[in-house]
């Protein structure tokens, strides 16, 4: 199990990954692991918004984890929101990927989350803050995989044209390079201490 804190601007999230562990008979799947994602907001109980964010994170993780290596086991991912200043879904995705990778769970690829916002002038802003998100006419979050830089998951809000969507995807794919390089640097730093 491992805990990771991921910051984007001032947005921070704490992620903890547990597994493979025992699973309740009602939830066990005979040929693959059961992945559970729990998102805890800063105040109050999880509501419908957290449930939809959980579904986005869970679908992305299930696509990149090798779940068939641990049948009838459970993998739990808990994401605690510490501070929300925009781009929260991509922050959840990045923290989730680092926690899963750090816990030693077998994965076929890494993924990262990038948020783009289109403001009133038509400009594309990556990793918008909460203020920028509110003033924009569209906010999109994409999960990009590390092997072929394809879009694994997308969550969009607002109105935009097909051309703008494709532009945002291209911008996100470029931005994902920096995030994957950050993953590589942090893992190298972690393993540099051991014998």
């Amino acid at each position, binding site marked *: 199990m491992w805990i990771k804190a991921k910051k984007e601007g001032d947005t921070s999230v704490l992620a903890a990954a547990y597994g*493979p562990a025992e699973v309740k008979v009602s939830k066990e799947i005979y040929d693959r692991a059961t992945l559970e994602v729990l998102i805890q907001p800063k105040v109050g109980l999880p509501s419908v918004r957290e449930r939809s964010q959980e579904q986005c994170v869970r679908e992305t993780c299930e696509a990149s984890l090798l779940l068939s290596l641990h049948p009838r*086991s459970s993998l739990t991912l808990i994401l605690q929101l510490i501070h929300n200043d925009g781009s929260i879904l991509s922050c959840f995705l990045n923290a989730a990927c680092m926690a899963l990778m750090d816990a030693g769970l077998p*994965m076929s690829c890494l993924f990262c989350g990038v948020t783009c916002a289109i403001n009133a002038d038509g400009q594309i802003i990556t990793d918008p803050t909460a203020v920028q998100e509110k003033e924009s006419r569209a906010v999109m979050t994409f999960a990009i995989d590390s092997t072929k830089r394809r879009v694994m998951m997308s969550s969009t809000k607002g109105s935009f044209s097909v051309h703008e969507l494709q532009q945002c995807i291209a911008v996100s794919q470029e931005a994902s390079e920096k995030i994957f390089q950050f993953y590589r640097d942090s893992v190298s730093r972690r*393993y540099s201490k051991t014998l």
Partner: protein
Amino acid sequence: MFSSLKERTGEVLLPGDEFSFEAEDTISLAGPVKPEKVVCGPGLRRSGDRLLVCKSGVLRHKQPNMFWVDSQQRRYVPAKGETVIGIVTVKSGDVFKVDFGGSEQASLSYLAFEGSTKRNRPNVQVGDLVFSQFLIANQDMEPELVCIDGSGRANGMGVIGGGGLLFTVSLGLVRRLLSPHSEVRSDLQQLFPCELVVGMNGRLWAKASTVQQTLIISNLLQSCDTMTAQQRRALFRRVAQGAL
């Protein structure tokens, strides 16, 4: 592929990195051709004609052709032949259920102890520590433990006696302790005499002559998990001089 793997030995790899047969791999028509065989260990998976990395860690190599990814984790996944320390949780009929820290409990038959027969049952109670090895350990079946080896001898396995302290460390430290010329073990030998049972599931059982020395050993091992070699040697030196 062997050459590209050999080049990257010692590098940190991430899931998604892959190795494939290079296009320049040519077969010489002159001399005898030996098919190059690469044995993949934990962290590397074969997918068609490519080798995929599925865990983050350092790529290691052992002669002649073994490669694996050395990763750090705390959660144990059972593998056949590994010796672990388990805690007996249920004693039902002919089988004990043992918790070894994995995703399900393993079964241990009462006949799998040295010298035990149907009339002469072993003295194992719920809550006892057993040092045993995996007979069956794969993802599809319930894991099974035994306390004898192939020829029926205990070979150090069985119920661990009273006294002593059971504590958990990461799997990487356990592998470092069990490696042939372990520096951690040689540093520990210079402190004071103690009995140490090392389970590959990250559990260690230590017993020294006094309770205080046992606690010192357990604290030292748990803390030297995340230290570099110099920090660890400095710490052991301080303890040996009686500072703690």
